């Protein structure tokens, strides 16, 4: 720790950081544009200017950019010096000479970082009286809208898209004050991370087209914290809703999982929630619309008199799956996974459970010096992980940068100095994949070859002699990995190989025994595959063939409609399906129960690393639709959500801490709930006036400490309950950086979810 002086006051701070980030963490707000915690400092916008003094006698000081100044012991700076405040206001004035007065028609308005910074610097009166430069916009695909006139040339977009995310189809052209950020020609973005541009851009150049199609101002949206259900990474998101429609998805900061970024699948794949054609809005019994009472009675009858089998869903919550299992009995509950995959999944679970090898988080992998991927196409199966692996290749070369005192946050200098050096990333897979290009070496092998390859690595690490050419191939990799301080082994269920899974763990523990920080990460297929692995005891294959049940319940089936499944269902007497959207399977149901989607329900999902995370509803489901867990709870004693968590906690040892994942429904801050709506939310009294002129009573959320209104505390510090970013002076997603202060001080394990396996 060192001491620095800001406007005369001493502060104890950590070494190695830049002054801007240090000040943000201290709660001292210096305005900035081009700096980004994940992208580092480049010193382009000049907005983060502060005064630096040589010593106590230096009365004038000189203006420096805080994002580019490393903190040093005894450093003296001023943030509030008059001259530097005027300078910052002048920077805004400069930017405003070309920035159009689009606020009233700009999507970003209300959550715009530029707006916040203009207000923060105090610049108001525009002296510029000449014409502004304008640009033609490009068509960039169905997800991102382009409006170049608004650009303030902070270069964040190219730095994110090309440097950070490795995207190839985006760049900057032109010079002086005619810079253009776009593609070579019109067309959809190719990178699966392109959606992050809408959050990375501090103004309205890149905005969410899906939001635009049903636009609502940020302050009018109802938001709630949720978890992405598109893969097993478990990225944290925020849904935004109005008038019963989910309107957009935002990244929700989680240090260990997704950080500041999510992929486009999670960001743009929500319209199924709103799709009037495919949503099941009504339950049916034997083809006739049925109300809840009828549905429940029918179900009770079926279950009371008969043996009923049930297939859970790897995309549904732990609670819903657990309750279904309770309903039909453990011996009648089946995982929605075929035998071949189930074997692999169970193997993964037992390895993780055995505590013999460290289970890594995505953040751990991002920080690792060496990574080896065995038998997974990460860009397809867990994109956010691929993004993290891409960052990891910088880590070993960064050691060189440390030698010349070059801090990691000095983005362009590090990029230059490191050049094309990269840390050891090895990828062995059956198909060409995105990571090939940045790998040190990539191996195209078939499944059994990869198994042999992994075996050879284990053998070599155990000191066994190998045939000449295998030895050479493998020695190279091991030499590279053993020279690392930390190594991540990544594999998964993709190739359906138990061997690869087991050998991956072995490699990790052998490296660990050589004092190299090593760990494992297994990519599994779905958002709650791990939950399924823990709860279920048998694969649904057991239901095929002779043991076809008479009665079957399927929970939100996300199954490939194979012939095996089709013929199994065809021979059932009662097919009970609980689902939110029409599929081939729902068409076969004779009892169809309308469930709420992830946006209309609460629940816990367990991601690939065994992290339990809670999602909350952003809107109550419409009439006749009920969350799956609630349907099931009604058949089992009508417990509340929290009561169910307590049951799970005592029933299932591995899930003992499920009650700690988020505060329970009784949690209050100063006696108040946490609002899902901003204090500026408008239209409450008139929103439904066309249906009923009386002001509707806000729905009471009995299942969580969140409220469906603006009433509530403004002092929420639980990241897991964070519904929207709004702090005094910070209306945009940059408010997350304000949170960094809290995060560093309150590193609350709960905020990042609860790991089942801590090792």
């Amino acid at each position, binding site marked *: 720790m060192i001491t620095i002086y800001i406007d005369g006051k001493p502060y104890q701070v950590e070494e190695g950081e830049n002054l801007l980030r240090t000040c943000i963490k201290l709660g001292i707000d210096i305005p900035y544009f081009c700096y980004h915690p994940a992208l580092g400092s480049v010193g382009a916008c000049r907005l983060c200017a502060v005064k630096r003094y040589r010593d106590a006698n230096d009365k004038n000081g000189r203006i420096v950019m805080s994002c580019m100044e490393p903190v040093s012991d005894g450093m003296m700076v001023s943030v509030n010096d008059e001259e530097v405040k005027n300078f910052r206001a002048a920077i805004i004035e400069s930017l405003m000479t070309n920035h159009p007065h689009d606020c009233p028609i700009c999507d970003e308005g209300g959550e715009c970082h530029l707006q916040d910074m203009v207000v923060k610097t105090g610049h108001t009166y525009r002296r510029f009286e000449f014409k502004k430069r304008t640009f033609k916009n490009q068509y960039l695909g169905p997800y991102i809208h382009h409006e170049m006139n608004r650009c303030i*040339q902070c270069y964040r977009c190219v730095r994110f898209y090309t440097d950070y995310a490795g995207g190839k189809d985006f760049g900057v052209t032109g010079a*002086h004050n005619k810079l253009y950020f776009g593609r070579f020609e019109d067309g959809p973005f190719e990178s699966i991370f392109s959606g992050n541009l809408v959050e990375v851009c501090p103004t309205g150049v890149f905005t969410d087209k899906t939001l635009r199609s049903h636009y609502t101002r940020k302050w009018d949206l109802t938001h709630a914290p949720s978890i992405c259900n598109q893969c097993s990474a478990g990225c944290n998101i925020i849904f935004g809703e109005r008038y019963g429609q989910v309107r957009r998805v935002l990244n929700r900061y989680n240090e260990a999982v997704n950080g500041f970024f999510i992929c486009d699948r999670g960001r743009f794949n929500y319209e199924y929630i709103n799709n009037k054609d495919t949503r099941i809005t009504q339950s049916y019994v034997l083809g006739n619309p049925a109300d809840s009472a009828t549905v429940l009675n029918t179900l009770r009858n079926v279950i009371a008199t008969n043996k009923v089998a049930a297939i859970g869903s790897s995309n549904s919550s732990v609670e819903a799956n657990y309750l279904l299992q309770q309903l039909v009995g453990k011996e009648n509950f089946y995982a929605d996974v075929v035998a071949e995959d189930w074997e692999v999944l169970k193997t993964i679970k037992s390895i993780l459970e055995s505590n013999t090898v460290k289970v890594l988080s995505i953040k751990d992998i991002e920080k690792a010096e060496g990574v080896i991927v065995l038998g997974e196409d990460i860009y397809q199966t867990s994109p956010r992980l691929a993004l993290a692996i891409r960052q990891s290749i910088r880590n070993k070369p960064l050691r060189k940068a440390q030698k*010349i005192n070059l801090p990691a946050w000095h983005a362009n200098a590090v990029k230059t100095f490191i*050049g094309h050096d990269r840390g050891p990333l090895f990828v062995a897979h059956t198909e060409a994949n995105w990571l090939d290009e940045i790998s040190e070496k990539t191996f195209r092998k078939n499944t059994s070859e990869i198994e042999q390859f992994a075996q050879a690595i284990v053998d070599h690490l155990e000191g066994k002699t190998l045939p000449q050419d295998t030895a050479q191939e493998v020695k190279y990799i091991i030499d590279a990995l053993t020279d690392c301080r930390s190594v991540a082994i990544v594999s998964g269920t993709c190739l359906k190989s138990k061997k690869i899974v087991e050998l991956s763990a072995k490699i990790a523990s052998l490296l660990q025994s050589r004092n190299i920080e090593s760990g494992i990460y297994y990519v599994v297929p779905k958002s709650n595959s791990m939950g399924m692995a823990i709860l279920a005891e048998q694969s649904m294959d057991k239901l095929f063939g002779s043991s076809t049940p008479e009665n079957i319940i399927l929970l939100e089936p996300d199954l490939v409609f194979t012939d095996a499944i089709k013929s199994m269902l065809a021979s059932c007497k009662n097919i009970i399906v609980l689902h939110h959207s029409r599929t081939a399977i729902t068409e076969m149901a004779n009892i169809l129960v309308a469930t709420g989607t992830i946006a209309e329900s609460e629940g816990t999902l367990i991601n690939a690393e065994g992290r339990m995370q809670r999602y909350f509803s952003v809107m109550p489901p419409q009439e006749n639709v009920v969350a799956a867990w609630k349907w099931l709870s009604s058949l089992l004693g009508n417990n509340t959500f929290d009561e169910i968590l307590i049951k799970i906690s005592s029933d299932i040892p591995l899930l003992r801490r499920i009650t700690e994942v988020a505060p329970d429904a009784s949690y209050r801050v100063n006696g108040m709930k946490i609002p899902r709506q901003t204090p500026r939310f408008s239209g409450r009294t008139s929103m439904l006036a066309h249906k009923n002129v009386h002001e509707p009573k806000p729905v009471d959320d009995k299942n969580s400490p969140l409220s469906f209104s603006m009433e509530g505390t403004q002092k929420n510090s639980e990241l897991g309950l964070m519904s929207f970013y709004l702090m005094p002076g910070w209306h945009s997603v940059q408010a997350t950086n304000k949170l960094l202060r809290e995060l560093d001080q309150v590193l609350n394990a709960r905020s990042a979810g609860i790991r089942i396996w801590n090792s």
Partner: protein
Amino acid sequence: MERPLTQNIKADGTYCTIDEYRRNGGYEAARKAVQEMESQQITQTVKDANLLGRGGAGFNTGMKWSFVNISNPNEQRYVIANGDEMEPGTFKDRLLLEGDPHQLIEGMIIAAKALKASQGFIFVRWAYKKAHQTIQKALDEAYQAGFLGKNIFGSNFSFDLHLHTSVGRYICGEETALINSLEGKRANPRAKPPFPQISGLFGKPTIVNNVETYCNIPHIIKNGPVWYKALSRSSEGGTKLYGVSGRVKNPGLWELPLGVTVRELLFDYAGGMQEGYKFRGLLPGGASTDFLVEEHLDTPMDFASVAKAGSRLGTGTMIVLDDQTCPVAFVHNLIRFFANESCGWCTPCREGLPWVEKILEKIERGEGTEKDIDILRFHTKYLAPGNTFCALAPGAMEPLQSALKYFIDDFNRHIHEKKCPWKK
């Protein structure tokens, strides 16, 4: 008067071939440096000679070289000659490149030995087509004679030198932007630290020096720092190429002892103002320097003295403002140049310079107001060194701020008379 830099320049404009160059004692200094001197010794000699960088910054060249760590024999290091002379009013490097390219090459060989660099580039601007040819011819001659390539002078020192011709953009004259351009990129400058001596071309230790600077090196090595310092009238060593352009009788370029006065240059060498023109002021070192006026005529043209007079020696090529030229138009022309040449990286330069240009145009048109002068003054403080990412914008403000100081009456006339008093 000794004129080491221009002693081989021929009146007919052809370049000095390698044979002619060697006949005049050329490559002797390189031989001495490569065969007889240690790298550190060379650097110390150059430092002792107090050769200040001739590109405009005026930093002690030997000291600049000393920041390169030469201890790792396996590390790639580079020496680069900055021949991107594009500062308006500057035309000195062109003479050296067209007339005596071997002098530059020899200087770079010595520098490469001092810095244990195995590769070098001569970066020449697009427009100097004749220089491209002469340099390439000279490089071919030098390779053939064994002064470039492997095992120079039979030692284990090898050095490859290549010509790179640019494709425009004044900002390439900024050393870190030049390095980016050599890397095939957009020529945005880089943040310093880290300095090019630590992380330069392709992240390797690199020295970038002006062409004229390198041309001094062989003479320093051949004749020693004491001799070199004695050439000058000040403690800053050597001779300097000085130029004068504008409405003078005899515009041109002369090699003179460092420290001749403005008066000598303007009247003795440039012959004073043309008939019918009166002297009003001059920019002593190219477009990005402050005006000097009548009261400064006896200022010695060395780095320290010109700085004391409130300006910069810069490149040492003077642009003379006569009384028939509108000072507002003069400054407007300069600012238009700088605004167009901004790389676009940092806010104040990118947005500020076009605004200043538009205001100057407005004033020149006769539509200016007092408020406009305020905005101009504001920009001269706003675009100060440190506030911007590099020195382009602060340089642009130098002629403006001094024009507002010395010619404010002319600006006001435009505003009050609602026209340019110089327009017929």
